[in-house]
């Protein structure tokens, strides 16, 4: 069997992290190819069902990333995301999913390096964690 390569779905906000990801891409900073970016307008619109869906459909981790606190284009969407992710992490723990598999970060538009680092760090972390063993628990 091949070495485990994690698959990560990243929900990024249109204003900050998507720009940072684009910057990281165009500036050719090192990036792992196993991340799939999904652009959302705001982290505040990332419905928990999207995260669960991604984990169910085969993602080994989900990254949600948006503007820094106080900096949301939509005033407070990132705070909404923060509360939601906290709760979601607790619920997912009940299904045997490590909280590290749902990660929330703030990456501003000019922080392409920060985005690359976040992704690299997460990929390494999930490599160590291995695949999700308890996925079927979530299927009701």
């Amino acid at each position, binding site marked *: 069997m091949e070495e485990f390569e994690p698959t990560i779905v990243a929900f990024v906000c249109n204003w900050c992290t998507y720009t*940072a990801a684009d910057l990281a891409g165009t500036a050719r900073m090192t990036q792992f190819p196993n991340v*799939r970016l999904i652009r*959302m307008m705001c982290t505040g619109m990332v419905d928990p069902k999207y995260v669960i869906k991604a984990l169910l459909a085969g993602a080994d981790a989900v990254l949600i990333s948006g503007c820094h606190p106080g900096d949301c284009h939509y005033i407070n969407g990132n705070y909404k995301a923060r509360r939601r992710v906290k709760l979601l992490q607790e619920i997912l723990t009940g299904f045997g999913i490590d909280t590290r598999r749902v990660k929330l970060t703030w990456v501003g538009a*000019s922080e392409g390096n920060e985005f690359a680092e976040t992704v690299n760090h997460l990929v390494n972390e999930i490599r160590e964690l291995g695949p999700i063993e308890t996925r079927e628990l979530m299927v009701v």
Partner: protein
Amino acid sequence: MKKTYGALVVGAGVGGIRAALDLAETGQSVALIDKKPNIGGILTQLDYQFPNDHCGMCKMLPLTERDGSSQFCMRKGLFHRNIDIMLSTEVTALEGEPGKFMVTLRKRSAFVDPNKCIGCGKCSEVCPVKVKSDFNAGLTKRSAIYLPVPHNIPNHYVVDLDNCLRCWQCYNACPTGAIDFKFEERQGFHILVADSDPKTFEDMKDWLQDQNFPLRHVFDGDAAVDALADQSRQVRILFLDMGLPGSDPEKVLRRGLELNPDLHVVLMAQPDQEQAARELAGQGAKDVLLKPFEPKRFVPWLDKLYMRMMSDETLDLDVGAVILAGGFECYDPGEVGDVLGYGREPAVVTSVEFERMCSGTGPSNAKLIRPGDNKPIKKIAWLQCVGSRDLKKKADYCSSVCCMISIKEALLAKKLTKGEAETTIFYMDMRTFGKEYERYRQNAEANDGVKFVNARIHSVVPADQTSGSKDIKVLYLDEAGRLQEEVFDLLVLAVGARPPVGTKELAEALGIETNEWGYCKTRYFTPSRTSAYGIFAAGSYNGPKDIAETLIQSGAAALEASRIITIYAPLTERTPEPQPEYRNVSRETPKILIALCTSCPILEQTVDMDSLVARLGGLASVAQVAKIGSACTKPGWEEIEALADKHSPNRILIGACQPYAYIPKLRELGQTIGLNPALMDVVDIFTPTAARQGEDKGAVEREVFSALSMASVRLLGADPTPLPPATQVTRKALVVGGGLAGMTAAMGIADHGYAVSLVEEQETLGGQAMNIRYTLNDEDPVKFMEDLIDSVQKHPNITVYKDARVVLSSGRAGRFTSVIATDQGAVSFDHGATVLATGGREANVYDYGFRVHKCVMTQRELEDQLASGALDTSALSGVAMIQCWRSRDEGRSYCSRVCCGQALKNLLMLKKRNPELPVYVFYRDIMTYGFAETYYTQARKAGAVFIRYDLKDKPKVEFEDKVPVITARDPILQREIQVRPSLLVLSGGIEPNEVSDLQEMFGVEVNADGFFQEAEYKWRPVDFLKQRLFMCGLARAPGNMSETIASAKAAAQRAVRILSEMRLTSGSVIAEVRHSLCSLCGKCISVCPYGARSLDLEQDMILVDELLCQGCGACAAVCPNSASLLRGFRDQQVLSVIDAALNGLNYGRARAAEPETATQTEGGES
């Protein structure tokens, strides 16, 4: 072809962008130019801004008709349907009059064809030139062919011809042939050498043989004239020797210019002929070259001259008005040699360099390490007022922004070092005069441990010369005059502002005046007007300002410009661009066209195109997959149009590079083929290929396929039903408050032809400004106010309600109804926009014997007595003034901003009348920001004594025989002093008026100090969070008359923007409700940050105000029934995108839940 614009905006920093957007949003066409090759001005270099210490530029973007402009990070770029951006462009001449100016622009070429450049960077790699990077403030090097801002879109390389060596290596390295050095065209570029010495010509011919120029030679003046007259081989450059026999050089020059006014004449002179040549140069010759020539310098010089002549463009525009927004430059401490070790010690940097060091796109990837030895920085000092408030450097003004920048940088350093950094700010006065500034400073000091030291560093030496350490020791005198020294890792010089380079030349070209410091001159009561009618100053062009005030100034300039255009070239004369009509495809089955751009050779090298096309063709609803030439060029785009015509798809997906750059193009395509651009998308297929050249073809193909399939399913699920209809706007405005701000705003709106109702609580108009009797700069405020009141009362479009109040207001965006209670009864008024200008008042604190002793008065009362002559200054034995009397103190954490200026105004008046009169000013920080600093200098020269006090140790006031006795500690003398003046004058500061009724009525908020809370401190300074409501004047923040006028005009401009259109449309990303699923729980109403949702009790349904909704999707995420949804991001769209994303990534391992078929089924649901 000559183009016509409503306005020309010179300078594309945030000030220029704001002015351009303000005008563009009212439907005016705008040409936005900048002499730099990028937009954004200095803000491109500053990533973090007070008060939330991050960026927020995107909040400047329009809130309605969002599809008309870019909807992404403004650091990437900007586009607006009414704005044409021209970079590397300068104004060279202006003629005409307001309403019809003829402007000549010069556009410097970048020598890189933007249609061919793919941004691969190969040119930059081979370039042998290394010069200091402007973007990184000189901390890194760049090549002569470079990206001006690495993250801008479109991201094309430009050639810096001044530093180019003309080695042509980049030309050979470019894979797409984008670099255009015009080699072939040289054959038609005739050069004539007129010199009796054959050697000159032989040398030139020899040196230039690779350059491909046709060279000709004549030996005397008459032959030269004949050669110049030969039209078939028109000479472009004439080398004219000063010692030419026959017709003398002057005649040849004159004849040559007659025959061809564009002839470039280069005079060749022996050293002894230089004087004569320079004189002749004044008659039309462009250059003087001294013999003998050096081939090493001559050949590149001629080559560059040719490049400029061939590639630079001259553009002529007709414009209605001109707005200047050139911003400011930062003072360069290196310009006069060694200032505090700058340039000598790597540990001494400027504030801009420090910003770059903190930036993720900076030299050290946001790691705080010292330039030179990469030592982690732990101990940092800031020194304020470097190049500002400095008579020796001819800068007797305050740069207004550096104090806040330094506090922000100190906090940034704390953040980047996780609180470890020790930060000390050495200052003269901490000028925290703006809204929320003082609180920010207090928090920095109290909560974050930033140290503030009132002292001036006088020298910087290496800390330890023997060890080779780059640490520095700073020496300063503390307030008591003791010599102190301290070792730091880094010293940041808070460099002041300077007028932008070229201001003088531009001022000459436009015929406007500059002030004594070289900034554009504006008058106190017309802060946005230059000395030439029809030309306006925006942003910090008339003096350094922070972002919020820059935007206010720009708004005011935009209003003035818009007024000029309305008066002299009314909008009605032009046919407005029709709203695009899209065909309704909601009843068609989805049919996707995928077009892949193959212009970049790397794609075909890294990906098996046939296999990719076949796989894409297998995706649900994909009708056609086509390869096209280059999507970014006109022929490529025509290919797409032809494909769209042929297959008539109802969804179009384009795989190309730099998707951001395609947004305006998609809009155009939508208009041409009648398809809503919301049903089109562009996916970046270049980045995955470029970053991973040489990797396994299959892996790269998976990446590209995945990106395209994700976008394809997203398009498949897009809602094809047409957008909600446009909202009708009531084209009238309500202005609450009849003071200076309210009246100015009302005039601004009414001058545009819209009806305004002005409601004033008092029986007279005028408000607080009526108390101002004279100003620091000898203007006449009394006459100004009388004239303003007169114009307001006579204005046919303004209805004034005095002794009246607004008692009720309701309605939706663009259509409000308010009820005004007057002494004649209630009046109902429909309006589309509202300006709240409820003003403020002088705060009175009954303390220090105020209202007990007659000799104690406020500054306003003193002004009154001085103006009326009631006060006999010769009878006074002394005057004491106490500043910050309960300002910037407990319960009032803000600076009232006007008191220091007011105190100086009265002080100078006292001194003018009685020069011998002793005046003592007890102050904490003198807030004479901007050009007011010069009056502080005058006051000190006049002999006034300024004594600083601390909040901990306030002056004590007692009274002996009704004479005030003020006891305070003098920090310089280090002892207690006592003053017994005959007058004690207190600066009470400004308090906002009580607005709780309006708060409830209009649903607006006030900040902790009672001033109106703006939507965003910096980026939307006169907007309320609730749209269509604007604020100005003292109700927004303390300010002098000039600042109040500027804010009122900015607010008026925002209102005009709403009223200028009959109908407003929303953006295509907008929230909707599926009423059949909605349980009316109301969660979406409370979660909406814009108040766009409401419960209609009559219909029993949740309504979305499509103009207020900004499409954040918070409501969709919170809805428990999935009844609330966001267009473009509906649940099934996002869920199928997730499936597509995971489908593409398959690393050869079994997944627990296999969603192979999910894409098909869920995608097909729509």
